[in-house]
C-alpha cells in the first residue's frame, strides 16, 4: 500500500547569497538545506563543519564548580564513589564515560546499573541500601536518570552521602534534594549568561552528552591527554545515536567526530565493529551504528543484568573484550528470535481482534519477556500505524507491566496519564511509555476499554496518517555520482537530520528478484522510458511489489553510492513505490472485468437479438460469448423481465423467447432484489478465472 506522499514546498531562495550555493556545490542540495532552515552562510558553516561549536564548553552548569570540588575531595580522601546508571544504551555509555575518567583519576569508583526486569529506571531504595551500607558509598553520581527521584534523594541524604544528578530528562514540579544537578532541561541548572542558541543545543543533549561535559571538565582540571578525550567521544557517539536525539548542533559534532575516531580509539567498540566485518572504518555511518552495534550493546540489558556490555565499553583487555562480544552477539541472537516469535504471536492475536475507529493495539500475554515488549510494540506501530501497548505479567511483583509506542497523532504519555489512578507507576514521553497496574485496582479488559475510549475521544475527526516527506523531484539526468557524493555532506543522518528523500516519476520496472538469506529483500532494476539509464534499487524487508515487469511506477528513494569489485555505482534505496500506473505493453487481457461491464454488454446483446433474432436466444451461446455461466444469463434475463425491459414469452430449458419492451437505467438492474445473487454468481466465475490464470 502506498503511503501518503508530500513533496516539501521550496522556500524562496532569492535572498540567499551566491556564496551559499558555491559552498554547497549543488543548487538542488542547497535548496534542501534552505528548506531545512539552514539558510545563512554562518548556519551552513556550523552545519558542515560543526567543530567550532560549544561541544567543549563545560562551564555551563551552575553547579559544575561545586561538583568538581566534591569529586576532587572524594578522590583526595579516597571516598567511595558509585556511578548509578541506567540500563539502556545511553545509560550504559554515560556510566562508562564517567567510570573511565574517574578510574583514570585513580578514584575509588564502582558502578551500579539496575536490572530492567526486576527494577525500573532511576534510583530505588533496595539498591541504595546495598550501595550505602555494603559498599559504603560517600558520593553517588547518577547518569541519565534520577531527576524525578525525590524520595530516594532524601534517603541518600539521610545517610550523609552526597548525590550528584546528571540527566537529561524533564523533572517534576518538585526537585530531588541532590547535592548538585547537571541537567540542561531543569530550570536553574544551566548558567544564566548562555546564548539562546547554546541553551537550545544543550537541551538536545543525550544523557551521555551531559556526562561528557563533566568528564571534559575533569580532563581539563587534571590536564589529561587527548587520547582519553577521543576514547570518550566514541562512547558519546554511540549513546547519542542510541537515544535518538536530534543530530544537530553539539550532537552533530559528537557523532561526526566520533564516527571518525572508532578506528583509532576505544578498544571495545573498535573490536565490535571489526567483528561485524565492516572492513572500511572510514565510511562508518550512524545507520550502521544504530542497526549493527547498538542492538548488541542493548541486548544484555533487555534479557538480564548488565555486565558484559559495560566490560566491552570500559575494558583495555583484548580477551575480556572478545568474550564480551561473543556473549553479546549470542544474546542479541536470542533477543532477535524472541522478538520474531513475539511479533508472530501478537499478529495472530490481532487476527481475533476487531479494531474499530482509531483503537489502539492493546494485547496481553503473561509469557512475553518484559525486556523486549517495547521493540515488538514499535514493530506493530510500524506495521499497523496505530498506537500499541503490549502487556506482560511480572510474577515477582504481581503486576501487569506494559511498554507502549505511538504514532505522531497520539501523545501516548498523555493517554496513559488519564488512567494514572489505576496505575502503580508510569513514565515516558510523547512517543514511548512504560507503565504497570495491579488487577486489584482494574482488570486488563477494563483498562483496555478505558484507553480505547480516551484514544477515540482524543483523535476525533482525524485519521492516522503516515506521511513520506519528499525533499525533491528528480530526473534521471540529475542522478550522477557527483550529486550523490555531494549528499554525504549532510551526514551523519539521524533524528532531526533525516536523509533526503527523492522522487522519480514514470520509470520503467525492468526486473525484480528477492535477495537475502530468507529472501526477504527485493532487488529491482529501473530505467527511463527510452530504456536508458538503468539503476539498481533495493527495497529492504519487502518481498515483492504489485507492479509487473515493464510497468511504469513512481518511486521514493535515498540514493547511495555502492562500491563493489572496484566499480562505483549508484544504488537507490527504495522507501516507497506507487505501482498504480498503466503497463507499457497491452495488458488488457489481464485487466479485471467488472460486473457493470458484463451487464452493459449483455444488455446490448439482448437488444441485438430482439432486432435480428426475433428475440430468440440460447443461454449457452450468450454465456459463452460473455464468458459467464448459463445460470448467470438465466438469472439476468429474469431480472430484465421483472423490471419490464423484456417480456419472456416462452422458455424451454436453454432456449428463451422474449419481446424487448424498452431500455432501462443500469441502476434499475442494480437495485433489483436478485442482483445480489447475480453478483455472487459473477464473483464465483471470476474467482475461477483468476485461479485458471495462476495455474
Amino acid at each position, binding site marked *: 500500500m502506498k503511503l501518503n506522499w508530500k513533496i516539501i514546498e521550496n522556500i524562496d531562495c532569492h535572498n540567499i547569497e551566491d556564496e551559499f550555493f558555491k559552498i554547497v556545490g549543488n543548487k538542488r542540495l542547497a535548496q534542501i538545506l534552505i528548506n531545512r532552515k539552514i539558510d545563512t552562510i554562518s548556519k551552513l558553516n556550523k552545519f558542515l563543519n560543526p567543530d567550532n561549536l560549544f561541544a567543549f564548553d563545560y562551564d555551563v552548569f551552575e553547579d559544575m564548580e561545586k561538583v568538581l570540588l566534591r569529586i576532587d575531595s572524594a578522590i583526595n580522601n579516597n571516598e567511595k564513589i558509585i556511578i548509578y546508571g541506567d540500563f539502556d544504551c545511553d545509560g550504559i555509555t554515560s556510566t562508562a564515560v564517567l567510570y573511565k575518567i574517574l578510574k583514570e583519576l585513580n578514584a575509588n569508583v564502582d558502578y551500579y546499573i539496575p536490572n530492567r526486569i526486576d527494577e525500573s529506571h532511576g534510583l530505588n531504595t533496595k539498591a541504595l541500601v546495598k550501595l550505602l551500607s555494603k559498599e559504603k558509598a560517600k558520593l553517588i553520581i547518577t547518569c541519565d536518570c534520577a531527576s524525578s527521584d525525590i524520595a530516594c534523594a532524601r534517603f541518600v541524604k539521610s545517610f550523609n552521602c552526597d548525590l550528584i544528578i546528571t540527566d537529561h530528562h524533564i523533572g517534576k514540579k*518538585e*526537585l*530531588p534534594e541532590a547535592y548538585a*544537578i547537571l541537567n540542561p532541561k*531543569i*530550570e*536553574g*541548572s544551566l548558567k544564566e549568561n548562555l546564548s539562546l542558541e547554546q541553551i537550545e543545543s544543550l537541551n538536545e543533549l543525550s544523557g551521555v552528552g551531559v556526562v561528557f561535559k563533566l568528564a571534559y571538565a575533569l580532563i581539563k582540571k587534571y590536564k589529561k591527554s587527548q587520547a582519553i578525550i577521543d576514547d570518550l567521544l566514541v562512547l558519546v557517539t554511540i549513546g547519542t545515536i542510541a537515544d535518538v536525539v536530534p543530530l544537530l548542533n553539539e550532537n552533530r559534532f559528537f557523532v561526526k567526530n566520533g564516527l571518525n575516531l572508532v578506528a583509532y580509539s576505544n578498544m571495545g567498540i573498535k573490536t565490535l565493529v571489526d567483528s561485524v566485518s565492516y572492513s572500511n572504518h572510514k565510511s562508518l555511518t550512524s545507520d550502521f551504528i544504530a542497526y549493527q552495534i547498538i542492538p548488541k550493546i542493548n541486548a544484555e540489558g533487555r534479557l538480564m543484568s548488565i555486565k558484559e556490555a559495560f566490560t566491552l565499553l570500559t575494558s583495555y583487555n583484548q580477551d575480556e573484550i572478545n568474550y564480551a562480544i561473543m556473549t553479546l552477539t549470542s544474546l542479541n541472537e536470542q533477543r532477535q528470535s524472541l522478538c520474531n516469535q513475539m511479533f508472530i504471536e501478537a499478529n495472530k492475536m490481532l487476527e481475533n481482534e476487531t479494531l474499530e475507529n482509531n483503537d489502539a493495539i492493546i494485547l496481553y500475554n503473561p509469557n512475553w519477556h518484559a525486556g523486549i515488549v517495547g521493540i515488538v510494540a514499535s514493530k506493530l506501530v510500524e506495521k499497523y500505524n496505530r498506537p500499541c501497548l503490549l502487556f506482560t505479567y511480572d510474577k515477582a511483583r504481581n503486576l501487569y507491566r506494559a511498554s507502549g509506542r505511538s504514532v505522531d497523532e497520539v501523545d501516548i504519555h498523555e493517554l496513559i496519564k488519564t488512567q494514572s489512578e489505576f496505575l502503580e507507576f508510569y513514565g515516558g514521553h510523547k512517543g514511548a511509555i512504560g507503565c504497570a497496574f495491579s488487577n486489584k485496582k482494574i482488570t486488563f479488559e477494563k483498562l483496555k476499554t478505558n484507553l480505547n475510549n480516551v484514544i477515540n475521544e482524543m483523535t476525533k475527526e482525524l485519521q492516522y496518517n503516515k506521511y513520506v516527506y519528499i525533499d525533491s523531484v528528480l530526473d534521471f539526468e540529475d542522478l550522477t555520482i557527483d550529486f550523490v557524493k555531494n549528499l554525504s555532506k549532510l551526514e551523519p543522518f539521524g533524528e532531526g537530520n533525516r536523509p533526503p528523500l527523492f522522487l522519480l516519476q514514470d520509470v520503467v520496472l525492468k526486473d525484480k528478484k528477492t535477495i537475502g538469506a530468507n529472501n526477504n529483500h527485493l532487488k529491482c532494476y529501473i530505467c527511463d522510458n527510452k530504456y536508458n539509464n538503468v539503476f539498481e534499487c533495493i527495497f529492504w524487508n519487502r518481498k515483492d511489489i504489485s507492479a509487473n515487469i515493464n510497468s511504469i511506477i513512481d518511486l521514493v528513494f535515498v540514493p547511495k553510492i555502492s562500491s563493489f569489485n572496484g566499480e562505483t555505482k549508484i544504488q537507490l534505496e527504495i522507501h516507497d513505490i506507487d505501482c498504480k500506473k498503466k503497463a507499457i505493453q497491452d495488458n488488457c487481457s489481464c485487466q479485471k472485468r467488472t460486473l457493470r461491464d458484463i451487464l452493459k454488454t449483455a444488455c446490448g446483446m439482448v437488444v441485438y437479438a430482439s432486432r435480428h433474432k426475433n428475440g430468440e436466444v440460447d443461454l449457452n451461446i450468450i454465456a459463452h460469448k460473455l464468458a459467464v455461466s448459463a445460470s448467470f444469463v438465466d438469472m439476468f434475463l429474469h431480472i430484465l423481465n421483472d423490471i419490464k425491459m423484456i417480456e419472456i414469452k416462452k422458455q424451454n430449458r436453454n432456449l428463451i423467447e422474449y419481446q424487448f419492451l424498452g431500455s432501462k437505467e443500469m441502476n434499475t438492474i442494480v437495485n433489483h432484489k436478485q442482483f445480489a445473487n447475480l453478483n455472487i454468481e459473477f464473483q464465483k466465475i471470476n474467482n475461477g478465472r483468476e485461479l485458471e490464470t495462476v495455474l
Partner: protein
Amino acid sequence: MIKVAIFASNNGSNFEAIVKYFKYSRNKKIKKYNLQFVLITNNKRAYVILRAKKLNIKYYIIENDKLDEFLLLNKFDLCVLAGYMKIINEKTLKHCVFINIHPSLLPHYKGIDAIKRIYKDNATNASGVSIHYVNKYIDGGEVIIQKQVKLDKNISYACYKRKVHLVEHKIYPKVIEKFLMSLC
C-alpha cells in the same frame, strides 16, 4: 467586577500559579464579583504570553514608558508584579495599588539575582520570600508578608531556586485573595 493586572517579563510561573489558584478557588465571595485577570508584559518574546494564551487570559504587550497612559485608560483594582523586570515610575504608581514579590527576606538582598546571591553567599538569614507594596524605591515598599525558605548548601542551586519559587506560588495567590476580599 474585580479587575487585576499581572505584570511579568519572562517565564511567568507566578502568573500561572495565581490564575490557576483563582480558577479552582471555592471562594464564593470573590467568584460572585467576577474576577478578571489580564497580563501586562514588556517583552513580546516572553514565555508568559504562551501561558496566557493557554489559560485564555487577555494579554497586552506594553513598553514601560507607555504604562502610565495605559493605566489611565484601563482601571484596575490591583496591580500584581510577578517577575516584571522594569522599574515602575512614581507617577504610574499613583493609578493603582501595586504589590510585588521578592525572593529574599527584605530588606536583605534587594534587587536582581537575589536567589543566586543568597545561595552563593550562603546567606541563611536572608533566604525566603517577601511580598510588599511597591513604592519608588527598588524592593523598598512596606512588607505585607514574609516566609522563610531553608537554605542548605548541600543541595543544588536548581533545587534551592525551585523551592523558593514553590513558596512564591503558594503564598502570592493567598495574599492577593486576602487583598481582594477586603475590596468585596
